[in-house]
C-alpha cells in the first residue's frame, strides 16, 4: 500500500468513525495517531479530580438537567412561548392600546382575559417543568462510592462527581458517568454490562480492563494510583472510543471494550473500579439525547392559519371602516352641525380655547389621514371579537379535562403494575386521532423481554404442539362461514357447494383434532392473548411454556431409543455460558447468562430432567437421569469453549464425559448448522426444516442443536492448533481462532431444534391488528439483531410468509472494503432494484416488507439517498429496522415525518427510545418496566402496549373530533357575533360606535357561550367507545383530516357570515323605524342592541345543540343554562341603579319583555339563522353520508341488536384492507386453504369426469 492510499483510507476512517460500525470494536492502532489533535484533545488525570476544577482541564461536573426552563429563563422563555401564538400577540397589542383613548372598550375588559389566558398556560408549563426538575434531582442525587484518597471510598451524590474521580460500582448499580474500567471483581478483569437503556439490547455485554490495570482490584490498591488518559472529545458515538492510558510509564491503547457508559448497569459482577472520563453533559448517553421540544398538534398549527384568515378578515373590515370613516367625516359629517366637527375659530369671537382641545383626532376633517389611522386602530380593537381569544384558554381547559378522562379510563388500567395511562402533556390529545405511522421499539414495548421455551423438534418429531395460532383462527373463521353457508343455503340444492362444505369441514376436523389434543396450549394461547390470565390453574414456570405430555415428567425415559434424545438435552444443559445461582429463599437454582435465551434453555433442560448444577473453571456438573430414570450427578470436563458471535452465529463446547469420550456440542442458526452436518447426520434434516419454518412463522426464535463425538487423537491435534491460535497476539488472532474453530465444527450430527418465544406483551398481536385495520403503518425499530427482529415481526403479524421481504444490508464485499462510495452504490442499487420490484404491475396487490439493518440504514438515510429509501419504505406494508442506534431511531423518525408529512407516533420504553419519542409527533413511553427516561421524555405513558389501541382508536378519535368541532364552532360563533359589530358600523358612518353594552361583549366569550363549547370538547362522542373499536375505519377520518379541512373551515366561516347577516338585517328591518310596543314607543339603540344580542345568544347556543350528537344532562344544562343565564344577566343588570347600568337600566322589564315583537322576532331570526346549516346537514346525511353518520343511524335504529348480519357486514366492510396484522394473515391463510380446496375439487371433478361412470352417464340417452 502506498503512502498516498494509506492516508486516503485514514480520511475515510475518520468519517466512518461517526457511523455505527462494529469494525470499530477492535482497537484500532491507526487512530492512536489522532490523539492530541482537534477532536481528540481530552486529557484526564486519573485519581486527581482536583486538577479538573481549573482551566485548562476544567470539565463540567456530573450534574444533568432535562428541564426546559430555569428560574431566570422561565419568565422570558415561557412568555415567548405564549406570544408565539399570533392571537395572543394581537390581544397583547390590543390590551396595550386599550389603555389609550382609542379603545372602544374599557381597558380591564381587554386586559383581564389576556392575563387569565396567558397566566393559566404559563402555570401549566411551570408545573410540567417542575416535575422534570424533580426527576433530574432524583437522578443527580443517586449515590456512588468515590475514592476520597488513602484507599478510602466514600458515598457521594452523582452530581458531585468530577472527571478523574475513581469510583467503585457494585452489582446491579448504574454507572454514574462514562467510566474507564480499571479492574473488576473477576481475576481476569472482565465485567458484564447490561445496556438496555442505551440500545435496548438485553443480553449482557462483556467489558475487559487493560492488562496494565488488572491488579488495581482492591480499595487500598488505588491509594497511589495515578495515570493519564488521552482520548477523544465528548461525542455521540456509543460504539467507538479512541484513547490511550499512560500508566507507570507504559502507554497502552484504549478501546470501547474498556469504556462503561452511563445508564448501563453492572450485572453478574460484584464490583468494578473505574475512572470518570466523561461526566454529566459530556457523557455519551446525554449527548445522544435531544432536548425535548415543545410539540404542537397538527390541528393547533392549522388553527393558527385559521386565525390568520380571521385576521385578514379583521384587517380588511378595519380598513373598510377606517377609510369609510375618513370619507364620511370629510364629506358628510362635516356638515352635521350637531357633531360640531368644524371649529369655526375665525368667525367666532367668543371662541372657547378649550374647544380646540375637544377636537377629536379620530374625526378631524382637516386631517383625514390621521383620523383614518386612528379609526383603523380603533376598528382593529373593536372587531377583536372575530378572533376568539377564549379559544386558546378553552382548548387548554378542554385538553386538560380530556387528559384527565384518558387517565381515568379503567379499561386502560393495568392491574398488574397498578398503573394507568398518563397523559403527560395535554397538548396532543387530538393528534392521537391522526396517527398514520407508528414507530415502535421492540424490547419492553412489544415484547416483555422474557424468553419462553415453547417448542422443540427432536429426531424429526415436533413437540409442544403443531398448529399455529393463525391456523386455529383460520379454521375457526371458516367454520363460521360454513355455518353461514348452511344457513343461507338451507333448503336449496347445490351439490357443488355442499361438496365444498364437506371438504372444508373435513379439512378442519383435522385441525380440530390437534386443537383438542393441544387443549392446554390452546387455553394458554387464549389466555395470553385475551389479556385475562388463567392464573392459579397451574403454577407457571417463568421462561417455560411448554406442554407436551410426551416429554414432561421424564416419560420419554421409557422409550426404546433415547440416546439421541439424551444428547439433545445434554446440548441444552452444557452448551452455554450461564452460571447457576442458588436462590437464597427457595433454595432452587436460578440461572444467569449472557443472553436470556440461554437462561431459558437451562430452565427447560432442568424441566426435562437435566439440571445444570455447578460450573467451575474447567468443569460442568449436571444432574441427569440414567436410562432407568434415576437421577445421577455427572461431571463434564470443559475442554474448549468456542464463543458465540454475530458472524459465527453458533457456539460450541467441547467436553469430556466421565467415560473419557470427547463430545462437541454445538448450537446455532439453521443455515450455519446445516452447512456443517456430516452426511450421516442429516437423517432428520428434512423434518426439522419443516418444523423450523412452522416455528418461524409463529414468530418463534429457533436454534439447531447438533453434536459429534471426537477421537481423542483428533482432538489432541486440533487442540494444539487451537491453542496456538489463541496464544497469538495481534489482529490476526481472531481470524486464526475462527479458522481453527471451523476445522472442528464440522461433520456434525443433527439432533433437532428448539424454539423459544420472545414473549410478546399481552394483546400485542390484536392491538397491531386493530391499528392496521385503522389504517396505520407500523415500523419496528430495534437495536436487536436481524433474526430477532424478524421473529418478532412474525410473532406480531407484521410479517407473514407470503410477503415478499426486501432485505437491505451491506454486502460482505462492500463492507470489507470500507469504502464509502462502494457501500453507497451497493445500498443504492439494492434500493433501486427493490423499488422497481414493488412498482411492477403484477406486484400491485402483493405485500412487501422491508428489513434493513443499522449500517445500511446509515447510508440510506444520507441526504442524497433518503428520498429514494423512504419512497421504497413507504410502499412497503411493514418496515423493520434492526441494529439501529438511538440516534438513528430519532433520525428515521424525523425523516419519515418530514418525507411523508404524516403524523408519526413513536413508542418505546428505554432510554434508547428517548430520541425518537421526542422527535415523533407523539411520543409514548411504556411505564411498565424499569427506567423512566422514556416515560419522562414522552407525551403519553402507557403501562402496556395494547392500550395503544384504545388510546388511539377511541380517545384519539374522540379528541380529534372534539377539538375540530370545537375550533370550528368557535370560529363560527365569533364570526357570527363579530360581524354584527361591523354591519352596525356601516349604519353609524363608521364612527366606531358599538351597538352592545360593554358588559354584553365581555360576557359573550366568558359566560354566555363558553360552557357549552367546553362540554362539547369534553363529552362529545360521535359513536360510543365500543363502536369505535368495532369500526376502526372511523379512525381514518382523522388521518384524512376530514373534520378540519379547509373546506369545512370555510364552510363554517360562511355559516357564521350568514348567521350574522340574518341576525342583523332581520333585526333592523323588524324593529325600525316604527314603534315596537303597543304604547307607541320606538326602539332606541339600547333596545335594538339587547334584542339583537338575544338573537345572537340563541343562535350560537342552538347551533351548538345541532352539532352535539351525544346529549348528556351536562350538555343540556350548559346549553339551555347559557341561554337562561342571558335573561338572568340582562334582568339583573337592569335592576342595578342607573349609575352602573346606564342605558340598560330596567331595559328588560320595562321595554323588551313586554314586547311581543321581541319574542316573535327571536324565534324567527334564530330559525332563519340556523336554517342553512340545518339544510346542509340534512342533505349531507341523506345523500352524502359519512361513515360515522351511517353508523350513528344504524345504532339509532338498533341495527346492531335487531339486524346483526347487516351490522357485521358493515363492520367487515369498514375494515381497511391491510397486509399486516393478525386478521390479514388469517385472511391470507383462508385464501390459501380455499385455493387448495379448489385445486382438490377440480382434481376430483376431473377424475370424476374422466371416470367411466360419468362418461356412461353423460352418454346415456336420457340426457
Amino acid at each position, binding site marked *: 500500500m502506498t503512502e498516498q492510499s494509506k492516508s486516503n483510507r485514514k480520511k475515510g476512517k475518520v468519517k466512518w468513525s461517526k457511523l455505527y460500525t462494529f469494525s470499530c470494536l477492535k482497537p484500532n492502532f491507526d487512530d492512536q495517531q489522532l490523539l492530541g489533535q482537534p477532536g481528540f484533545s481530552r486529557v484526564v488525570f486519573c485519581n486527581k479530580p482536583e486538577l479538573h476544577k481549573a482551566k485548562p482541564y476544567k470539565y463540567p461536573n456530573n450534574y444533568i438537567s432535562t428541564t426546559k426552563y430555569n428560574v431566570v429563563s422561565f419568565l422570558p422563555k415561557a412568555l415567548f412561548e405564549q406570544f408565539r401564538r399570533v392571537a395572543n400577540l394581537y390581544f397583547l397589542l390590543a390590551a396595550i392600546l386599550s389603555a389609550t383613548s382609542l379603545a372602544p372598550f374599557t381597558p380591564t375588559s381587554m386586559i383581564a382575559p389576556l392575563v387569565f389566558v396567558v397566566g393559566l398556560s404559563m402555570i401549566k408549563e411551570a408545573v410540567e417543568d417542575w416535575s422534570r426538575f424533580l426527576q433530574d434531582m432524583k437522578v443527580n442525587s443517586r449515590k456512588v462510592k468515590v475514592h476520597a484518597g488513602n484507599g478510602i471510598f466514600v458515598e457521594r451524590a452523582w452530581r458531585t462527581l468530577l472527571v478523574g474521580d475513581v469510583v467503585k460500582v457494585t452489582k446491579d448499580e448504574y454507572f454514574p458517568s462514562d467510566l474507564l474500567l480499571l479492574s473488576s471483581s473477576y481475576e481476569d478483569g472482565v465485567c458484564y454490562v447490561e445496556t438496555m437503556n442505551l440500545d435496548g439490547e438485553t443480553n449482557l455485554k462483556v467489558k475487559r480492563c487493560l492488562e496494565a490495570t488488572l491488579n488495581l482490584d482492591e480499595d487500598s490498591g488505588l491509594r497511589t494510583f495515578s495515570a493519564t488518559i488521552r482520548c477523544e472529545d465528548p461525542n455521540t458515538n456509543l460504539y467507538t472510543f479512541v484513547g490511550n492510558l499512560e500508566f507507570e510509564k507504559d502507554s497502552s491503547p484504549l478501546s470501547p471494550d474498556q469504556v462503561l457508559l452511563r445508564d448501563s448497569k453492572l450485572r453478574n459482577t460484584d464490583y468494578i473500579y473505574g475512572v470518570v472520563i466523561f461526566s454529566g453533559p459530556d457523557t455519551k448517553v446525554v449527548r445522544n439525547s435531544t432536548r425535548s421540544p415543545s410539540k404542537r398538534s397538527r390541528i393547533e398549527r392549522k388553527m393558527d392559519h385559521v386565525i390568520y384568515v380571521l385576521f385578514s378578515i379583521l384587517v380588511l373590515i378595519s380598513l373598510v371602516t377606517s377609510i369609510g370613516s375618513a370619507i364620511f367625516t370629510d364629506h*358628510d359629517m362635516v*356638515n*352635521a352641525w*350637531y*357633531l*360640531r366637527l368644524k371649529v*369655526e375659530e375665525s368667525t367666532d369671537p*367668543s371662541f*372657547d380655547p378649550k*374647544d380646540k382641545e*375637544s377636537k377629536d383626532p*379620530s374625526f378631524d376633517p382637516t386631517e383625514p389621514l390621521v383620523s383614518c389611522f386612528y379609526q383603523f386602530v380603533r376598528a382593529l380593537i373593536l372587531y377583536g371579537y372575530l378572533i376568539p381569544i377564549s379559544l386558546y384558554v378553552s382548548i387548554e381547559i378542554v385538553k386538560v379535562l380530556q387528559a384527565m*378522562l384518558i387517565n381515568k*379510563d*379503567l*379499561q386502560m388500567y393495568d392491574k398488574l403494575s397498578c398503573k394507568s395511562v398518563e397523559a403527560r402533556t395535554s397538548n396532543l390529545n387530538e393528534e392521537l386521532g391522526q396517527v398514520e405511522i407508528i414507530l415502535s421499539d421492540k424490547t419492553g414495548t412489544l415484547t416483555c423481554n422474557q424468553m419462553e421455551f415453547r417448542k422443540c423438534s427432536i429426531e424429526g418429531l415436533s413437540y409442544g404442539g403443531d398448529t399455529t395460532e393463525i391456523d386455529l383462527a383460520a379454521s375457526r373463521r371458516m367454520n363460521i362461514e360454513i355455518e353461514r353457508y348452511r344457513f343461507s343455503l338451507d333448503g336449496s340444492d347445490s351439490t357443488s357447494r355442499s361438496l365444498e362444505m364437506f371438504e372444508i369441514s373435513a379439512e378442519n376436523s383435522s385441525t380440530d383434532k390437534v386443537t383438542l389434543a393441544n387443549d392446554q396450549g390452546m387455553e394458554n394461547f387464549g389466555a395470553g*392473548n*385475551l389479556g385475562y390470565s388463567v392464573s392459579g390453574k397451574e403454577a407457571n414456570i417463568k421462561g417455560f411454556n411448554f406442554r407436551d405430555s410426551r416429554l414432561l415428567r421424564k416419560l420419554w425415559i421409557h422409550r426404546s431409543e433415547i440416546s439421541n434424545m439424551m444428547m439433545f438435552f445434554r446440548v441444552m444443559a452444557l452448551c452455554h455460558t450461564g452460571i447457576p445461582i442458588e436462590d437464597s429463599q427457595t433454595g432452587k437454582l436460578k440461572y444467569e447468562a449472557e443472553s436470556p435465551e440461554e437462561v431459558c434453555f437451562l430452565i427447560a433442560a432442568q424441566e426435562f430432567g437435566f439440571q445444570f448444577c455447578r460450573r467451575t473453571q474447567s468443569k460442568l456438573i449436571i444432574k441427569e437421569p440414567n436410562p432407568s430414570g434415576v437421577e445421577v450427578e455427572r461431571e463434564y470436563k470443559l475442554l474448549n469453549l468456542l464463543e458465540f458471535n454475530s458472524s459465527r452465529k453458533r457456539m460450541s463446547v467441547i467436553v469430556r464425559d466421565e467415560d473419557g469420550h470427547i463430545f462437541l456440542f454445538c448450537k446455532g442458526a439453521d443455515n450455519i448448522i446445516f452447512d456443517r452436518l456430516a452426511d450421516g447426520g442429516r437423517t432428520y434434516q428434512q423434518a426439522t426444516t419443516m418444523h423450523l419454518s412452522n416455528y418461524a412463522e409463529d414468530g418463534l426464535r429457533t436454534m439447531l442443536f447438533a453434536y459429534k463425538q471426537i477421537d481423542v487423537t483428533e482432538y489432541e491435534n486440533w487442540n494444539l492448533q487451537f491453542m496456538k491460535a489463541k496464544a497469538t497476539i495481534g489482529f490476526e488472532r481472531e481470524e486464526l481462532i475462527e479458522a481453527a474453530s471451523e476445522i472442528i465444527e464440522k461433520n456434525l450430527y443433527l439432533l433437532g431444534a428448539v424454539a423459544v418465544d420472545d414473549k410478546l406483551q399481552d394483546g400485542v398481536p390484536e392491538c397491531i*391488528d*386493530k391499528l392496521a385495520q385503522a389504517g396505520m403503518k407500523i415500523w419496528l425499530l430495534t437495536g436487536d439483531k436481524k433474526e430477532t427482529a424478524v421473529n418478532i415481526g412474525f410473532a406480531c403479524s407484521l410479517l407473514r410468509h407470503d410477503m415478499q421481504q426486501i432485505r437491505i444490508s451491506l454486502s460482505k464485499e462492500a463492507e470489507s472494503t470500507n469504502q464509502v462510495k462502494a457501500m453507497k452504490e451497493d445500498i443504492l442499487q439494492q434500493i433501486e432494484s427493490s423499488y422497481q420490484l414493488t412498482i411492477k404491475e403484477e406486484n400491485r396487490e402483493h405485500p412487501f416488507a422491508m428489513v434493513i439493518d443499522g449500517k445500511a440504514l446509515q447510508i440510506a438515510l444520507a441526504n442524497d439517498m433518503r428520498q429514494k429509501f423512504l419512497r421504497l419504505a413507504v410502499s412497503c406494508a411493514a418496515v423493520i429496522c434492526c441494529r439501529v442506534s438511538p440516534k438513528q431511531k430519532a433520525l428515521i423518525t424525523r425523516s419519515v415525518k418530514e418525507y411523508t408529512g404524516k403524523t408519526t407516533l413513536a413508542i418505546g420504553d428505554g432510554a434508547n427510545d428517548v430520541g425518537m419519542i421526542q422527535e415523533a409527533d407523539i411520543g409514548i413511553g411504556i411505564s411498565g418496566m424499569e427506567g423512566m427516561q422514556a416515560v419522562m421524555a414522552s407525551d403519553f405513558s402507557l403501562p402496556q402496549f395494547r392500550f395503544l389501541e384504545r388510546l388511539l382508536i377511541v380517545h384519539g378519535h374522540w379528541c380529534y373530533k372534539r377539538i375540530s368541532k370545537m375550533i370550528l364552532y368557535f370560529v363560527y360563533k365569533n364570526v357570527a357575533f363579530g360581524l354584527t359589530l361591523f354591519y352596525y358600523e356601516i*349604519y*353609524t*358612518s363608521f*364612527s*366606531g*360606535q358599538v*351597538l352592545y353594552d360593554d358588559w354584553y361583549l365581555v360576557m359573550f366569550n366568558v359566560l354566555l357561550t363558553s360552557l357549552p363549547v367546553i362540554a362539547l370538547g369534553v*363529552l362529545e*362522542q360521535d359513536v360510543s367507545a*365500543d363502536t369505535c373499536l*368495532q369500526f376502526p375505519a372511523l379512525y381514518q377520518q382523522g388521518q384524512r383530516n376530514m373534520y378540519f379541512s379547509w373546506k369545512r373551515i370555510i364552510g363554517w366561516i360562511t355559516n357564521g357570515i350568514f348567521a350574522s347577516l340574518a341576525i342583523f338585517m*332581520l333585526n333592523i*328591518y*323588524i324593529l325600525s*323605524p*316604527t314603534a*315596537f*310596543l303597543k*304604547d307607541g*314607543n*320606538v326602539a*332606541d*339603540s339600547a333596545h335594538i342592541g339587547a334584542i339583537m344580542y338575544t338573537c345572537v345568544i340563541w343562535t350560537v347556543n342552538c347551533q351548538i345543540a345541532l352539532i352535539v*350528537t*351525544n346529549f348528556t*344532562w351536562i350538555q343540556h344544562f350548559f346549553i339551555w343554562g347559557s341561554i337562561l343565564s342571558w335573561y338572568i344577566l340582562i334582568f339583573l343588570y337592569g335592576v342595578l*341603579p*342607573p349609575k352602573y347600568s*346606564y342605558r340598560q*337600566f*330596567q331595559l328588560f322589564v*320595562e321595554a323588551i319583555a313586554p*314586547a*311581543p315583537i321581541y319574542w*316573535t322576532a327571536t*324565534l324567527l331570526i334564530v330559525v332563519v339563522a340556523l336554517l342553512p346549516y340545518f339544510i346542509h346537514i*340534512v342533505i349531507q346525511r*341523506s345523500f352524502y353520508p359519512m361513515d360515522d353518520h351511517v353508523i*350513528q343511524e344504524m345504532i339509532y*335504529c338498533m341495527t346492531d341488536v335487531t339486524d346483526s348480519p347487516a351490522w357485521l357486514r358493515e363492520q367487515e366492510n369498514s375494515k381497511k384492507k391491510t397486509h399486516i396484522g393478525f386478521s390479514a394473515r388469517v385472511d391470507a391463510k383462508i385464501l390459501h386453504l380455499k385455493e387448495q380446496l379448489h385445486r382438490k375439487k377440480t382434481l376430483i371433478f376431473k377424475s370424476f369426469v374422466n371416470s367411466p361412470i360419468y362418461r356412461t352417464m353423460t352418454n346415456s340417452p336420457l340426457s
Partner: protein
Amino acid sequence: MASEERSSLSAGVESHRAPVRSGWKKAVHQFKQQNLPACKPVLTPAWVITTYFLIGVLFIPIGFISLRASMGVVEIVDRYDTECVPNSYKSDKVAYVKDMSVSKNCTRYLKVKKRMKAPIYVYYELDNYYQNHRRYVKSRNEQQLLHGLRYNSTSSCRPLELNKGLPIVPCGLVAWSLFNDSYSFSRGAEKLNVNRKNIAWQSDRDHKFGKKVHPFNFQNGTLIGGGKLDSRIPLSDQEDLIVWMRTAALPSFRKLYGRIEEDLDEDDVVIVNLLNNYNTYSFGGKKKIVLSTSSWLGGRNNFLGMTYILVGASSMFIALVFLLLHVKSSRLPAM
C-alpha cells in the same frame, strides 16, 4: 374476531367491577368512564320532515297573525322639510333656517284615509341624522342629568361642557342638538289636543333625570344648536329632552312627540301647524311627521309577518321535497 370478544367481554367486566352505585357517585363514575346516559339524536328523514313540517305549521299562522296586526295599523307620513320653506329661500334652505327673523310657521294638511282609533301617536321622523355617531353618543353625562350642578366632572360632554367658564346643564352634544320643531293639530276648526305627557320611559323620568335639576346656562353660547329648555321645569319633566336623549340606533329614526287622544274618521283632514325650526338642511336630512295608531305588535311593519310566512312556506316546501325524495329512494333501512 378475538378483539371483538374482548371488547364485549371487557364491557362485562366493567359493569361487574363497578357495582350499581347510587346517585352522585354513579354519575361521577360514568362521567369518568365517559358513558353517562345520553340521548343521541340522529337526523333521520322522519325527523327532518317532521321538523320542517312543524316549522311550517307554526310559522305560517304566526305570520298571518302578525301581518294582520300590522295591516290594521293606520299610518300617515308627511315629509315637510322641503315644502315648509318659502319659495324665496328654496335655493338656500340653510340660510332660511338660520335666519331668526323669518317666520318658521308652516301649515300641512293630512288626509285620513282610514279611520284611526285613539290613541293616535304623533312622531317626528328624521333621516340621515347620525344620532348613533360615536362622538355624539358619548357626549353626555348621566350623572349630571341626575344630580345637576352637584356633579361636575363632565369631561365626557366635550365639546359642550362649559360655556364662558360655567358648566352647562344638561351638557353635551345630544342635549344641545335637541329637536325643536313643534306641532299643533286641528280638525277643521276644532283643535285636536296633543297629550305630550308620558311620552318618555317611566324609568328615565324616575331614575335618570333629576327631579330637582333645572337647566342651567343652556344654549347660551354663540352657536345655538337646537331647542331651548325652560329653566323653571326640572329635567325629569322635560319629556321632549328625555325622548331625544334616547339616541336612536340607526340614522333614520322616529321619536314620539305626543298622543292625540281622539279618534279620527276616514276622510278627515288634519291641519298641522308647525314651526320649522330645526336645521336638517345643512346635512341634507329629511323631516317627516307621522301619525300612527298601534297594534299589539307596535307600529305598521309588514316585514315580520311576511318573513314568517316566507320561512314557513319554504319549510313546508322543503318538507315536501324531502318527503318525495325519501319515498323515491330510501338509502337506509327502517327509517
